[in-house]
């Protein structure tokens, strides 16, 4: 039956796409007559700048491996995983597949296990592992942080958050800063943003060790009850609808919320965009100290790739020292290789002239966060779980549903296909 569909698809595609001309090969790569291998690389890119960076990396691959050429294909991040899964379904996947740690669950069976070279931050490797297998090599690493409005803290006479601050300190700050139509804290229902704070609060984890949902567990109920309490006590700003995935951080940058949890990947842009001084701190410590989930992105090799040895070389170059130094230099993200992390800090200092002290403190918070970080492993149907959290957490925040009932609903619906 699937063959029938494939034949139909091939017929349709055959009408629009042209063949590989003078090369032999199957999905994802082709070998020229002179022995040069051209490999497809699928990656997300949202702007011409980002695409230019990727083109630079593709050239770097050919420089270091003269027999390998890269054919880069890009899609905006929001469409990337839809495109990727469709390509896999149609057998048109690239050899080199870019992967984000939170999406790994759905692709675990389709990626070739790799061996990690030396030099990576352990957490970055851990984030791209599943079932003990290294499914991709990381190029960046991110942790969650509390972004805060320094001006507002100064005005309210509150001590600024710093490493070691507690959930009680956080609650007090959120309450005090909620005045004059502004909220102390911008709430969220996005996975990393919300679940990291719940983790720091009491260690509540959405999935078990063997990656099965446990949203209805008692610690989760307690933690969500606490989080929703921020709305009840008018310390937190509730998202305006289930479609507001980036509510907390948007409200923060707009100056409507004085604190928000957001990823370290937005460090540069928030410091630049906000019309006030931005401070950063690790997540407030609950009973077991400050915790955060870490996430990262990297490159893997499709199992179906006909030129695996070459593809592995490409991934090693793309995550190698030169590529990492280049990406850090253009501020693409916090590098996964420890040696190149200083380069990223230099970029941020250069970009934010006159705010060197802010950047240095921020980077300190990032390192602090990564030290207490654990990867968030996700189920195969994580997209679905995310959607359910958006719909049902909102009901909890507005007081329309009890935390226990909402979590039970998500658990029940998310159990299918996990």
């Amino acid at each position: 039956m699937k063959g029938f569909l494939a034949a139909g698809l091939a017929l349709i595609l055959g009408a629009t796409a042209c063949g590989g001309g003078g090369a032999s090969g199957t999905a994802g790569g082709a070998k020229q007559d002179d022995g040069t291998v051209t490999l497809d690389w699928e990656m997300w890119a949202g702007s011409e700048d980002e695409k230019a960076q990727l083109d630079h990396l593709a050239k770097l691959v050919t420089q270091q491996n003269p027999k390998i050429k890269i054919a880069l294909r890009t899609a905006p991040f929001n469409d990337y995983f839809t495109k990727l899964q469709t390509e896999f379904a149609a057998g048109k996947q690239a050899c080199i597949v870019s992967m984000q740690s939170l999406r790994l669950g759905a692709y675990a069976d389709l990626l070739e296990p790799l061996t990690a070279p030396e030099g990576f931050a352990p957490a970055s490797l851990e984030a791209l592992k599943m079932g003990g297998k290294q499914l991709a090599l990381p190029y960046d690493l991110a942790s969650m942080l509390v972004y805060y409005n320094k001006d507002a803290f100064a005005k309210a006479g509150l001590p600024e958050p710093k490493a070691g601050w507690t959930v009680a300190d956080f609650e007090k700050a959120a309450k005090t800063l909620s005045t004059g139509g502004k909220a102390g804290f911008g709430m969220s229902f996005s996975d990393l943003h919300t679940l990291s704070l719940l983790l720091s609060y009491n260690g509540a984890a959405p999935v078990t060790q063997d990656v099965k949902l446990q949203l209805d567990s008692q610690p989760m109920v307690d933690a969500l009850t606490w989080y929703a309490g921020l709305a009840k006590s008018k310390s937190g700003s509730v998202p305006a609808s289930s479609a507001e995935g980036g509510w907390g951080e948007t409200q923060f940058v707009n100056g409507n919320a004085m604190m928000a949890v957001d990823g370290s990947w937005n460090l540069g842009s928030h410091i630049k965009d906000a019309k006030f001084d931005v401070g950063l701190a690790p997540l407030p410590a609950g009973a077991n100290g400050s915790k955060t989930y870490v996430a990262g992105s990297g490159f893997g090799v499709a199992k179906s790739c006909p030129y695996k040895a070459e593809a592995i070389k490409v991934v090693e170059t793309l995550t190698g020292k030169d590529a990492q130094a280049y990406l850090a230099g253009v501020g693409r993200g916090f590098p996964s290789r420890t040696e190149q992390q200083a380069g990223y800090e230099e970029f941020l200092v250069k970009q934010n002239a006159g705010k060197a002290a802010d950047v240095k403190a921020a980077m300190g918070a990032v390192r602090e966060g990564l030290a207490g970080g654990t990867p968030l492993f996700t189920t195969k149907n994580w997209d679905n779980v995310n959607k359910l959290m958006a719909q049902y957490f909102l009901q909890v925040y507005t007081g329309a549903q009890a935390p226990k009932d909402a979590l039970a609903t998500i658990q029940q619906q998310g159990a299918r296909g996990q």
Partner: protein
Amino acid sequence: MRTRETWSALGFATPSVLGLGLFTLFPVGMAVVMSFFNWPMLGGSEFIGLDNFRYLFGEDPDFLAALRNTFVFTGLYVPLNILLALGLAFWISNSRWQNLWRVLFFIPAITPMVANAVIFKLLFQLVGTEPNLLADGRTALLSVVAMSVWQGFGYNMIVFSAAINEMPKPVLEAASLDGATGLRRLVSVQLPLISPALFFATTMTVITALQVFTQPYILTAGGPGNATETLVMNVYQAGFQSRDLGLAAAAAWVLFAIILVVTFVQFLGQKRWVHYES
């Protein structure tokens, strides 16, 4: 001569027949087949009979809610849309600025729906209720209806406006000589005269209403809870988030069947109230 004509006819018809077959009939037939399979986007498929339909109507807690929401949406959206479009069409028919009003009221219909929805999201935020109208299960669907009516009435208004301008003058004159004015004139003369346009507009509006997706997807993402989940959102979610193409095909077929039945009933009913002779 006859064979030559036949060959030319074939030549002209072949591209569209091929296109129709390849891009419409083949996918439609494929969807029927897929609805009887467990067909994940990644990995192999297996025949499971009616299990997808059983899951939709028996176990899926969202599907029945989506069905209910879709009907509520249609029940509110279609009458509001038609009444507003009809009222404005009659109103501007006497204005010397008729063409200006037509353009103004048509603008929402031709602006991209996503942009409209985003602007409305900001408007709902400005209203500043606690909780937001879109975050409250009691008002979320109503807010989606309000935005949709604003977006959608312009098209029907143009259709009605054209029909009103085409009403035969002698009939209207005869009616006024007979003393038909006001409401009487509207109900017994004018509405029957434009009844073909009314039929076309209601039929098409019901179909698009049953397929509503963009407005709730952008405004509320189905939330809070499942207060604004619609059938097409359910299909999209099953196909592209749960990657269960068989389930998505089954849900799509349920929607197709509903639209078919509703449209069929409307066509049956038109004998009673639609007058094509002028």
